[in-house]
Structures are given as structure tokens and as C-alpha cells.
């Protein structure tokens, strides 16, 4: 189930959305981060510049002593959250806060964690005010953490959302494929149920339903035509047969004519039967069929026929195997297979039934592999069978009945001979 969920188009879409969401969160975070950092730096610089201006004003008015006094005052007033102050004399000694060396050029500098504004004074003195950037480092950590958390959240939400959406999607796909399967199985009255929301799925379903209406209508017409042909053709042929029968008395040639007529009528009936089976309509009347009993009875019936043709029919039939199906059609299918084996197969016929497998084998000449596909087609007759009586429809009917019962028909080499297998 999970495997199917992950492979749905919707889940893939959800994953893609999650990825896009991811990327946009990352870009947003990055931009925000740079922006906030910039504005924090600007704030710090503004503060430093303002301080510098004030100190320089005092220095210009009252000289170095006043400057020193001011600085000391500030350090003492606010020891925790304060700026750093440095005054360097001509010898290079730094007064107040500790720093290895002070750049002498006027302007902004960045040393270790410090943002530094440097202003040269008179007599080789330099004043510098610095601000710690550790605040910004903290902020960076918080933001990175936040971003990571939102990544994890969006990933989890994306996957859960994707699973939920694709489950809903799968449900509808399942409903659609169940309907399609029932229609494929011959129940043409089935239609896809709409959600009533008019979404893409409903639109698709409506289109498919319209198509199904059309197909059903066309098939109905074909069925109707077939029934009419059956009726319209059978009635005159019946009259013909009746006439011939009345004239038959003591005339063997008319007897032959009747036999010929019956043969064409048999071909006709066989074609109609194949059409009936292929339409899938018989599936409605499916019941539990005791395959073991059915095959045993058929084997009993045909072993007598085999004996008369000096052949033998052996069985290997497991007990109590049931299948859901049409008993009449299954009887006709097995009968066709056994009769084929008797007619073309040789002198040793085997009929077998095991769980999920039925086979009819013979020890005759078999069928070359190249012919095995063709032989199931209507009216195909191999060169060998052309000389014998038959219409070439028997195996087509077998194939149609097997398909109706979802049985897999295969023709195999029995070494020697042919082995027809039905897997179900």
C-alpha cells in the first residue's frame, strides 16, 4: 500500500511542492538574515557615530582632559552594555579598553568581533570607539535554528500532506479501475460514480462515462443485428430444411443435402456461441461448479469412446476442486479439448486436474511451436486437420470460454504430443 502511495503522481507532486517550499523558506531566511544583520550593523554604527560626534565636540571645546573624563564617566555609568573606548597616544600606548594595536587611519575598521570607528586627534593621539558584534552572532544562531526547525516541519507536513492527498487520489483511481475492470469483464452497464464536485476527476469520469454510453449503445446495436441475422437467416433455412425433409423419403441425395445444410448451420451456431461467450453476458449466471466431478464424468464418458477407437484415456484428477463458472460452457470446453485429443492426438490421452491447473495431453504428433498461436484463431486449420471433418472453430470457442473464466490457456509440448493447459 505504502509503495503504491509513494508511486502516485500526487505524492510525487507533493514532494515537489515540499521541495519548492523548502527552497523558498531557505531564500526567505537568507534574505531576512542578511537584512537583519545589515540593519543591526547600521544601528551599531549609528550609535558609535553619535558617540564619536559627542566626544569629539567635548574634545574640541575642552581638550584632552575633558575627553578622558567623559570616557571614564561613560565606562563607569554603564559597565554591561557599553561601547569600547580606546585612546592611543603618540607612543602607541592604549588607554582604557585593551586592544593590541589601533589602526591610525580615520574611518571604519573591523577587528576580531569589533566594529571600530577611528578618529585621529591632535598631537599624535587617536580616538577609537568600538562595538561588539557578538550580539549579531547570537542573532545568527537563533535564525539558523529557526530555519532548521521550519525545514523539518515543512518536510514532515509535506510528506503527511502528500500521503493524505495521494490516498484520496488513489481511492478514486481504484474506484475508476474497479469500474473499468467490471466493464472489461462484460458488465457494460457499469459507470464511474462522480464526486459531484466537478473537479478534474469528475470531468474525466464524465468523459469516460459518455464514451461508455456510446460503446454500450453500439454493442447493443451489434447484438441486435446479430439476433436479427440469427432469426432472419434461420427462418428461411428452417423452411429449406423442412422442404428437404418432406422430399427425403427414399432419396439418399437429399439426405446428403440435409447433412450439408446441418453442417453450415453448426458453423453458424458455433460462431454465435463464440460471440455470446465473448460478450461476457454469461458471467451473470456463474455458479460454483464441481470441477472434479465434471471432469471425472467427462473422462468416464470419453474413455468409452476412446476404447472403441482403441485408445486409452487416463485421469489424474484431484478431488473437491471448485470453480466459479458456467457449467454448460465448461462442459463444452473440456469436451472440445478431449475430442480434439481423440481426433488428432494419438492413442494415449491424459486428463488432469490439480489445484489451479487443468490439462489435457496426448501422445500424437503435437503442434509445431510456430502454429500454436494461429490455431486458436477462428477458422484456422492446420494442414493435418484439413482432411478431417470440422469447422475450425472448436479451439476458438475453447479460448473464449477460458477467457470468460479468467483461465490462462496454453499449448505446450507433451513430449511427444500436445498438452493443453488451463491455469486458473
Amino acid at each position, binding site marked *: 500500500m505504502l509503495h503504491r502511495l509513494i508511486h502516485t503522481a500526487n505524492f510525487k507532486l507533493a514532494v515537489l511542492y515540499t521541495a519548492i517550499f523548502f527552497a523558498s523558506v531557505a531564500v526567505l531566511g537568507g534574505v531576512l538574515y542578511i537584512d537583519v544583520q545589515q540593519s543591526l550593523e547600521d544601528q551599531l554604527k549609528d550609535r558609535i557615530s553619535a558617540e564619536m560626534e559627542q566626544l569629539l565636540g567635548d574634545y574640541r571645546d575642552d581638550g584632552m582632559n575633558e575627553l578622558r573624563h567623559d570616557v571614564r564617566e561613560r565606562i563607569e555609568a554603564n559597565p554591561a552594555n557599553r561601547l569600547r573606548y580606546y585612546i592611543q597616544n603618540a607612543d602607541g600606548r592604549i588607554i582604557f579598553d585593551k586592544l593590541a594595536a589601533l589602526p591610525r587611519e580615520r574611518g571604519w575598521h573591523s577587528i576580531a568581533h569589533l566594529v571600530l570607528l577611528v578618529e585621529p586627534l591632535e598631537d599624535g593621539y587617536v580616538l577609537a570607539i568600538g562595538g561588539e558584534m557578538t550580539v549579531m552572532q547570537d542573532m545568527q544562531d537563533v535564525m539558523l535554528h529557526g530555519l532548521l526547525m521550519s525545514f523539518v516541519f515543512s518536510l514532515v507536513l509535506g510528506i503527511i500532506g502528500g500521503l493524505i492527498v495521494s490516498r484520496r487520489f488513489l481511492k478514486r483511481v481504484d474506484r475508476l479501475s474497479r469500474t473499468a475492470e467490471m466493464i472489461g469483464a462484460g458488465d457494460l452497464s457499469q459507470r464511474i460514480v462522480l464526486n459531484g464536485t466537478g473537479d478534474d476527476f469528475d470531468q474525466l469520469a464524465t468523459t469516460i462515462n459518455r464514451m461508455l454510453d456510446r460503446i454500450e449503445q453500439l454493442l447493443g446495436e451489434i447484438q441486435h443485428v446479430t439476433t436479427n441475422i440469427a432469426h432472419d437467416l434461420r427462418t428461411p433455412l428452417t423452411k429449406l430444411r423442412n422442404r428437404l425433409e418432406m422430399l427425403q423419403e427414399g432419396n439418399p441425395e437429399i439426405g446428403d443435402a440435409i447433412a450439408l445444410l446441418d453442417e453450415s448451420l453448426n458453423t453458424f451456431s458455433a460462431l*454465435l456461441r463464440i460471440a455470446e461467450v465473448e460478450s461476457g453476458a454469461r458471467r451473470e449466471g456463474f455458479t460454483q461448479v464441481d470441477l472434479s466431478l465434471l471432469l471425472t464424468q467427462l473422462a468416464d464418458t470419453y474413455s468409452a469412446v476412446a476404447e472403441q477407437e482403441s485408445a486409452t484415456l487416463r485421469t489424474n484428477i484431484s478431488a473437491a476442486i471448485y470453480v466459479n463458472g458456467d457449467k*454448460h460452457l465448461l462442459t463444452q470446453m473440456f469436451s472440445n479439448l478431449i475430442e480434439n485429443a481423440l481426433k488428432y492426438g494419438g492413442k494415449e490421452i491424459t486428463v488432469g486436474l490439480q489445484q489451479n491447473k487443468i490439462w489435457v495431453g496426448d501422445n500424437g504428433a503435437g503442434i509445431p511451436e510456430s502454429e500454436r498461436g494461429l490455431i486458436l484463431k477462428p477458422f484456422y486449420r492446420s494442414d493435418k486437420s484439413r482432411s478431417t471433418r470440422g469447422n475450425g472453430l472448436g479451439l476458438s470457442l475453447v479460448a473464449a470460454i477460458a477467457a470468460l473464466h479468467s483461465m490462462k490457456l496454453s499449448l505446450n509440448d507433451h513430449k511427444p504430443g500436445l498438452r493443453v493447459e488451463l491455469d486458473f
Partner: protein
Amino acid sequence: MKLLIIEDDAGMAGFIANGLKEHGHTADVAADGHEGLMLATGGNYDVMVIDRMLPKLDGLTLLKTLRESGVKTPALFLTAMGSLDDRVKGLESGADDYVVKPFAFAELYARICVLARRPPMGDVATTLQAADLEMDIMKRTVKRGGETIMLQPTEFRLLEYLMRHAGKLVTRTMLLEGVWEFHFDPKTSIVETHISRLRSKVDKGFSRELITTVRGSGYMIDAA
């Protein structure tokens, strides 16, 4: 026998009626569903032969109406609709037999005769008798002149079918449908083979042959 033929095709109806007259029976013909319904309700017939496709009232509805109004006359559908589904629907509507066109008259006639004096439903005999042949259906034993005959299951079913219709002709098709449940024409001589095996057990050693072949039509077992 007095029969009712409900068939819109005059030629077909005439063919059946003539055939029946030749065998010494009388037959009325109705040319459409309404006429058929009227005659069937009023007249006292032994068997009805009904076409499925009829003008005015189709055969299926006609028979359902008759059965609902309590007419129990045995009915046989004669129809060009030969699919398994059509057959099931026909029998469900209350028909006792179903013959698909085209048909041999002998086949139709044999089936009509079987229907004519069908024992009423529910009355199922457990022993059957044909001349000096006795069958016990419950004990699955067969005796002729007091001597037990051993039969294979298929042979037993075949003999049972013949004995149930003792004294009447049963056709090859009737046997295929009744004994083997084959609703198709097999390519091998199943019926002939099994009849000959059955004969070798039932008739061999007896001066009188009970199972007779009616040439070109079918088989019959003597009733007495």
C-alpha cells in the same frame, strides 16, 4: 393428441401441423400472440408449441401470462434464438422444453410426445420398470429377470433416461441434453458408443432386445 401451434410463419406452422396429422394427431394454429393466448386459455390441449418472436404478444410474455393464470399445459418453445441465455429465459418463463430452429421434424415430434403425458411434477418414482427390466433409483441397482446387472455411472444415467421415457422415442439430442447436459453437438459418437455398451450389458444373453434403434431418429426402450 390435440396440439396448439402458435407460430406467425404460415409455412412453418403448416409443416408442423401436417407432420402431426400424418402421425394421427390434430393441431390448431394461432398466427399471433393474442390469438394464441385466447386459444390456449379456452381449448383443452395436450401440448403447445410456441414461437418466441410473435406479432402482438411475444412468446415469453404469452407463456408467463398463461402460467400465472394457472394454465399448466406442457409448452415447448420453438425459436431461432439459440443462445444459452435465451434458453434459460425460455425455461424460466415456464416452458417445459426448448427447440432451436432449424430442427428435424422427428426431433420436435419426439419431444412433443415426451411432454404429452409427462407425469405431474412432484410425483417422482423411485423404481422404474420396462418389460422385465427393473431399476431402483435410490439403491442404484438394475435387475433383469431377477438377475443383477452392474452398470457404470454414465450407463446408469443413460438407462434411467431411457426407462423414464419407456415406450417413447428419444432422440440423440434429447439424450445429450438429458444424460450428459451437453447443449452442443459433440464431434465424436458419444451416444452411439454408450448405447452399444449399455446394450451389451442389458440385452446380451436375452432373446428379446429391449433397446431398439429407430433409424435416423433415435432410440427407444420397450415399455412392456
